[in-house]
């Protein structure tokens, strides 16, 4: 078990105009700019000005919908629809920032681990060691139809508790774990010093330091090695969102950071216990696995002001906003109280989901962060060069690394 971290870690989750469905109608929102690079650059620079450890960028293969488990895409015209590939957004903004970690979301159910491995390795080169990836499953008919090469049963959210639902989750999360294993093996497939440029022998690389990964799984086999040399962090950071058993297992076996959704401080002990048990079962007791609490945040000068904002947004949206995560509407000081309590209860960090962009992001960077700093809970400066460094994770050596003189 890891000891409590000296400070809490803080990330923000960026999605469209913000997490509230009516966010795009707020006065400071830029709904016409959601597909423009400048919009994303401004948001990530704002997050960096608040010394946040990283940003995540949401994504999905199918179009956004208010009901993710519905069979059909909805035909709403009053919601943000349309988005860009998160890995490419991440890459586009990486050269414009210097310190903040950048963690795009990717759907692993329909994509190739070989392609994703080199994309995230390249994001790590482009950002000089600030890349991560959040892996997400999508075992739904409407995602599968976009690719036309596999089928999934049409299950409602409630059906996930049925034997068919349990089976589906077991299969897709096991596939996701395989996927992460392939990512990590490919990142390790070049040892750090494989490129030798030895003019005397005419060899560009030492082939003994480049390794086949020979992964064989249920859904894919990957021979390797990667075509991209080992990235600056060795292993970019892997994250996953988890609400229950199978996803908790994925976090414990495969991730460096798990995003979880407690509603009360009391939830935290049972959630972390499940993740730690999975971590232990996977033989990862000596590794740090961060457990971050996800909270939707809507902040204002006063508690009443925040509640009024939420009411106004709900009215514009035509329904009270519901989320998988706790929706916090209050003051930055009140949020700092909550984070401090949950931090003490066992969460090492938080991924805040701003209800409205850029308003709630600015509340985080300009009001919450100074409050946390005043309480000694957050850092005063970036002091690590990489995202792993910011999270207190060591740079791993390649699993294939051999000692001097030993044949590979």
């Amino acid at each position, binding site marked *: 078990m890891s000891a409590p971290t000296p400070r809490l870690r803080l990330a923000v989750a960026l999605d469209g105009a913000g997490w509230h469905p009516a966010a795009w109608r707020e006065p400071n929102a830029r709904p016409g700019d959601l597909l423009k690079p400048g919009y994303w650059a401004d948001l990530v620079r704002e997050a960096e000005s608040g010394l946040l450890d990283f940003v995540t960028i949401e994504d999905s293969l199918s*179009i956004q919908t208010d009901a993710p488990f519905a069979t059909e895409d909805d035909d709403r015209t009053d919601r943000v629809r349309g988005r860009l590939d998160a890995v490419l957004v991440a890459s586009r903004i990486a050269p414009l920032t210097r310190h903040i970690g950048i963690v795009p979301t990717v759907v692993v159910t329909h994509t190739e681990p070989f392609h994703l491995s080199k994309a995230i390795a390249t994001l790590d*080169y482009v950002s000089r060691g600030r890349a991560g990836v959040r892996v997400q499953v999508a075992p739904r008919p409407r995602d599968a139809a976009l690719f036309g090469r596999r089928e999934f049963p049409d299950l409602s959210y409630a059906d996930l508790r049925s034997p068919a639902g349990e089976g589906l989750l077991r299969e897709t999360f096991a596939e996701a774990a395989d996927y992460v294993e392939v990512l990590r093996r490919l990142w390790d497939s*070049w040892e750090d010093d494989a490129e030798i440029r030895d003019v005397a022998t005419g060899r560009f690389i030492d082939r003994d330091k480049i390794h086949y990964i020979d992964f064989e799984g249920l859904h894919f086999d990957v021979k390797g090695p990667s075509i991209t040399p080992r990235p600056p962090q060795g292993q970019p950071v892997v994250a996953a969102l988890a609400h229950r058993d199978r996803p908790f297992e994925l976090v414990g076996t495969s991730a460096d950071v798990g995003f979880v959704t407690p509603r009360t401080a009391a939830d935290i002990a049972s959630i972390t216990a499940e993740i730690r048990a999975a971590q232990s079962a996977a033989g990862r007791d000596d590794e740090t696995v961060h457990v971050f609490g996800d909270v939707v945040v809507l902040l204002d000068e006063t508690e009443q002001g925040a509640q009024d904002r939420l009411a106004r947004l709900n009215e514009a949206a035509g329904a009270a906003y519901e989320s998988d995560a706790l929706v916090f509407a209050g003051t930055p000081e009140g949020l700092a109280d909550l984070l401090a309590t949950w931090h003490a209860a066992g969460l090492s960090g938080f991924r805040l989901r701003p209800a409205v962009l850029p308003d709630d992001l600015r509340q985080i960077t300009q009001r919450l962060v100074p409050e946390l700093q005043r309480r000694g809970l957050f850092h005063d400066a970036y002091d690590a060069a990489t995202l792993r460094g910011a999270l207190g994770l060591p740079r791993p050596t390649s699993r294939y690394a051999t000692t001097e003189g030993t044949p590979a």
Partner: protein
Amino acid sequence: MSTPHRTDRPKKQIHLAAHFPGVNNTTVWSDPASGSHIEFDSFVEFAQIAERGLFDFMFLAEGLRLREQAGEIYDLDVVGRPDTFTILAALAAVTEHLGLTGTINSTFNEPYEVARQFASLDHLSDGRAAWNVVTSWDAFTGENFRRGGYLPQGERYERARTFLDAATRLWDTWKGDEILADKASGEFLSTPAPGAFEHHDSQFDISGRFNVPRSPQGRPVIFQAGDSEEGRDFAAAKADAIFSRHSHLDDGQRFYVDVKGRLERFGRRHEDLLILPAATFVLADTDAEAVELAREIRLQQVSPATAIKLLEQLWNRDLSDHDPDGPLPTVDPSENDDLIAKGRASARSHGDRLEQAERWRAISQAKGLSTRETIVEVTGRQSFIGSAETIASTIDDFVQADAADGYILVPHITPGGLAPFVDHVVPLLQERGVFRTAYEGTTLRENLGLREPTR
């Protein structure tokens, strides 16, 4: 075949682009001026030099498995490359006008995902994305992908053609006026279900809603690189530009006439398809110095060890004991179908190996060349060698004589090797009035002088 040399028309404007060479044996990595081929700074430097030279675009090739020869990873050339989409998106942040062209194969990808990535790249670069559609990937490469295996040649073009059709359908699902984002009325979309599509053909059964709204260019600019009959027809039917290997006057003209002649059959006009061969260059103060420098570069590119490896690729057998300074082997090439070189597209292009070997032997004997010298001679591809004046006038002459519409330059040193061309040749082309002095358009399609895509 005679090529009409039209003198009554205005001078053609030359298109120039630059290829950041990835895995090859032409990059002289042993030169002290050679930098990293993987650090992002190298790509930034290269792209910014190309943009300083007002080039239309930069180009990245693709490779999805490390090459092998005789069962071992090939270690003599530059090895390792970054992910194409990721690098191009990052370069969009540090350039303003330069087109961003990437090779993405249609075998180990799916149309929905690739269409989404290119549409995203086009948004993120404000309209500078281009896709070089390729088909030929083998079972060896397939071992890295869940699709696995590979398709027979004919089916690969079938998949490539339907893949591009499917991607085009996805790009065209959004017309471009759907996003109102009207805060007052609460209407984000003007219509309920933009992006809806169904596409069913011999290769794909896909449906749903495409989730990237129409990008600045509507579709990326489409490149095609194949040289076979199917490849030429595919380009004539679908491509905006063709990336060829015909960088010499005669074969360039033959290729130009052939491919442009195919356009009409597909209801397209002469100017709807640009022909842009890859070209190398060796630039020095005088022509004589350039010739000498070119010889030195060739010897750097073909070391004794590389000569043996290239020899093995034609002979398709182990020749590791052969003396590179001696004559060509007396043993004949192996007719074995299992190639000694894996993951190298050129290894398949040797055709009749015995005939080719006889040709090499004849050259070797006639000129009294050693094995290495023969390889240097027969694998040479340097296109433009000379002073800046010579190179500028040669390129201009070739383009005016319809051997090409422009060239994709491949320097032998990365990332800085393009700079001498930009600094010394580009100004001469500008003086001749055949190259731009400022970017004309905001999108790549505009800079290439291509029409808006029709739907």
